């Protein structure tokens, strides 16, 4: 390895360990100490189990735990089943590029904006009720809790509208590495139906490729806060929402049981992932037994079509939610049960202008800074791998996924305590740092595959022509990879715009973004103003994705090898 390669590797490793891993470790450590009674800021310095006794005594804890497990595990398992069934039914009929285009709006929209839109659609006075009103004879919104229902059904629908498209994307990209058509032909020639080939042959090969993303989905669903505030049950809420409330309680002593709850949240996610690993092991044994029996099985076709129909329905509701954001932000008079507003106005936009301009400014600064920083680190990391001519070690891959698997609520409060000690809390820099913990992994994951897909012989050809490492990077790799680099940046922007908890905790409530404002407004009064914030929140990632598609198409307009296709 060259000297330069070693220096770059060292720098990247130091930045990743100190910038990304240390804050998480520090946050977990501080949270863990507080969970066992040690919080010097409150003058508590003796080890005790009191926070846990207080936690257990908090009203609604058992219900919160049940809700968390049901909505988190339920939405993940259902999403996985639906996405798998949908892929099995339509994979052969749809190109990957079409699929990616269809999924993009669902991947781009922040959880909070989608949740606000879903609340508009699902609420008793929402679009669905308005559509049904003439049939049911409703003059007034029906008295049914369709949002914030005590079962958490609305929350599960919200999670699934986001999770199914994400899993579809992950499964489609895994399928592109498998010769599906030939294996399907081979399996069917042996007398197995399409659905059975899918279950017995294709999925066992897909699973190892999607295992980590499924864990990420599970960890997220178990600890989501913004979407659970907007759509989930409110009294008692899911554990993560309850913890957020307790951490922001006016009584600072609540921090101790809240910290114990945060540790519980981490344990919960760990147990759920362990459960998934156990289910995988069991599934493997059962699957082998089933496979060896050689049964051709019944047709799985009806199940596949049911899954596909459910996916289409989820996406339709999601689309309706996105449209409703814009319509509500522009609506003026819109009485029940009219399907369409009776009059439109820009007054909500004009009235809230000062507020949303400030939030938009903060959001843009945060998104720009975190996306640029994450992209720089990702490129430095990948370039360091190239210069060392090594592939990525398993532990390095695990480091990338770590921030996505540890629940945010588990370490953000502790991290804030750490930031307070070094005087970094409450400012935009603290928020940038905290957001980057979650933006970087997605940027890194999005860029890694296209980077590795670059023909290494092309880089060797550049070296053989006398181009040193710097010129190979700037004059060959970066221009050729312009499209995936911009796509990764757009994903980074989308992730940053969607961040709620890091902004809330690290900004100490002083850094208002479109997301924090939308979540705050969603519980309140005026749908129109909420619609303004949520529309803007959704518009930013859409704009970023659009730019990521248009800029390379324009730059490479005369370069056939680079202008086509979606990466």
């Amino acid at each position, binding site marked *: *390895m*060259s000297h330069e390669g070693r220096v770059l590797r060292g720098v990247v490793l130091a930045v990743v360990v100190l910038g990304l891993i240390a804050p998480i470790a520090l946050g977990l450590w501080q949270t863990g100490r507080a969970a066992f009674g040690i919080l010097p800021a409150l003058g508590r310095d003796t080890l005790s189990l009191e926070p846990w006794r207080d936690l257990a005594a908090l009203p609604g804890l058992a219900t919160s735990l049940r809700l968390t497990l049901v909505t988190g595990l339920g939405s993940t398992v259902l999403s996985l089943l639906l996405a798998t069934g949908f892929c099995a039914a339509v994979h052969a009929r749809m190109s990957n590029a079409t699929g990616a285009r269809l999924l993009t709006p669902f991947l781009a929209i922040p959880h909070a904006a989608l949740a606000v839109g879903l609340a508009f659609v699902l609420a008793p006075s929402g679009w669905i009720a308005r559509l049904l009103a003439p049939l049911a004879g409703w003059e007034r919104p029906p008295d049914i809790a369709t949002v914030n229902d005590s079962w958490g059904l609305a929350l599960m629908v919200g999670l699934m509208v986001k999770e199914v498209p994400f899993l579809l994307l992950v499964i489609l990209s895994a399928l592109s590495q498998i010769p599906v058509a030939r294996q399907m032909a081979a399996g069917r020639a042996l007398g197995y139906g399409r659905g059975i080939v899918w279950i017995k042959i294709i999925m066992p090969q897909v699973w190892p490729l999607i295992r980590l993303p499924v864990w990420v989905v599970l960890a997220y669903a178990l600890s989501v806060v913004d979407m659970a505030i907007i759509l989930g049950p409110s009294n008692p809420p899911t554990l993560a929402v309850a913890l957020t409330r307790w951490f922001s309680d006016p009584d600072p002593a609540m921090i101790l049981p809240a910290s114990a709850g945060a540790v519980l949240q981490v344990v919960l996610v760990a147990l759920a992932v362990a459960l998934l690993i156990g289910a995988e092991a069991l599934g493997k044994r059962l699957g082998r037994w089933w496979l060896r029996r050689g049964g051709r099985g019944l047709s799985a076709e009806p199940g596949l079509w049911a899954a596909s129909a459910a996916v289409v329905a989820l996406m339709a509701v999601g689309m309706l939610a996105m449209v409703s954001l814009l319509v509500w932000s522009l609506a003026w008079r819109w009485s029940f049960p009219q399907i369409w507003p009776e009059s439109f106005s820009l007054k909500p936009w004009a009235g809230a202008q000062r507020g949303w301009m400030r939030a938009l400014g903060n959001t843009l600064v945060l998104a720009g800074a975190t996306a640029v920083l994450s992209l720089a680190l990702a490129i430095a990391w990948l370039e360091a791998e190239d210069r*060392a*001519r*090594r592939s990525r070690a398993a532990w390095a891959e695990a480091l990338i996924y770590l921030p996505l698997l540890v629940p945010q609520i588990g370490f953000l409060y502790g991290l804030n305590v750490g930031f307070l000690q070094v005087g970094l809390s409450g400012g935009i820099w603290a928020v940038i740092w905290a957001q980057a913990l979650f933006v970087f992994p997605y940027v890194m994951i999005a860029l890694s595959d296209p980077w590795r897909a670059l*023909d290494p*012989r*092309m880089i*060797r*050809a*550049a*070296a*053989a*022509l*006398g*181009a*040193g*490492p710097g010129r190979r990077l700037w*004059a*060959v790799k970066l*221009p*050729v990879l*312009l499209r995936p680099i911009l796509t990764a940046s757009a994903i980074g922007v989308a992730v940053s715009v969607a961040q709620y908890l890091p902004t809330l905790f690290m900004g100490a409530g002083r850094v208002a973004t479109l997301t924090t404002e939308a979540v705050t407004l969603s519980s309140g009064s005026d749908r129109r103003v909420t619609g303004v914030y949520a529309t803007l929140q959704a518009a930013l990632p859409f704009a970023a994705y659009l730019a990521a598609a248009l800029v390379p198409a324009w730059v*490479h307009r*005369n*370069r*056939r*090898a*680079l202008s086509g296709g979606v990466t």
Partner: protein
Amino acid sequence: MSLDLDALSIRAANGLALFAPLSLQVPAGAVVTVMGPSGVGKSTLLDAIGGHLAHGFQLSGAVRLNGRDVTHLPAEARRIGLMFQDALLFPHLSVGDNLAFGLPPGLRGRARRRAAVEDALAQAGLAGLHDRDPATLSGGQRARAALMRTLLADPAALLLDEPFSKLDAGLRDEMRAFTFAHVTSRAVPTLMVTHDPEDARAAGGPVVGLTSPEGRRL
């Protein structure tokens, strides 16, 4: 000018040698062909000579260029040109800019650099294609452009990695003649690996067989 390999041997990450230590001399303008079935490490041998060896491989012996030991120099400092079975033109650059990429920085002046590129394009029968997208060239045009790009960099030695195997039969003869004519006229020592005896015959130089570490002929 000459390219010398001195008891060159490569061990994979598992510690096993790929082939018996190889010593050979390629004089200026000569084309030496290394033969062997696919998978014996012919490409790895070229990687080692050119300085592109992946992490994990252990190299012993020496690569000398005009008597100078270049074994530990980075690829970009060796001045050893490399041609693959694919043209591998940079897809984001025009045909002319691909050629200009390899042109040594010592040649100064926009007009003179442009003239050098245009001259090379004309020699390859690509006159007037300076601004074309490489993806729109025919297979033969691409292969000729790639050779010109490599030669413009003024290499002190040239490595050819099965350079004709992906061309169709008619084009193959034409490219062989074109390549070897340019190589011999510039007196560059050239080492080619191939599994096609026709390539070796067309090259007209000595043929070396890679042997297994035990001395068995592969």
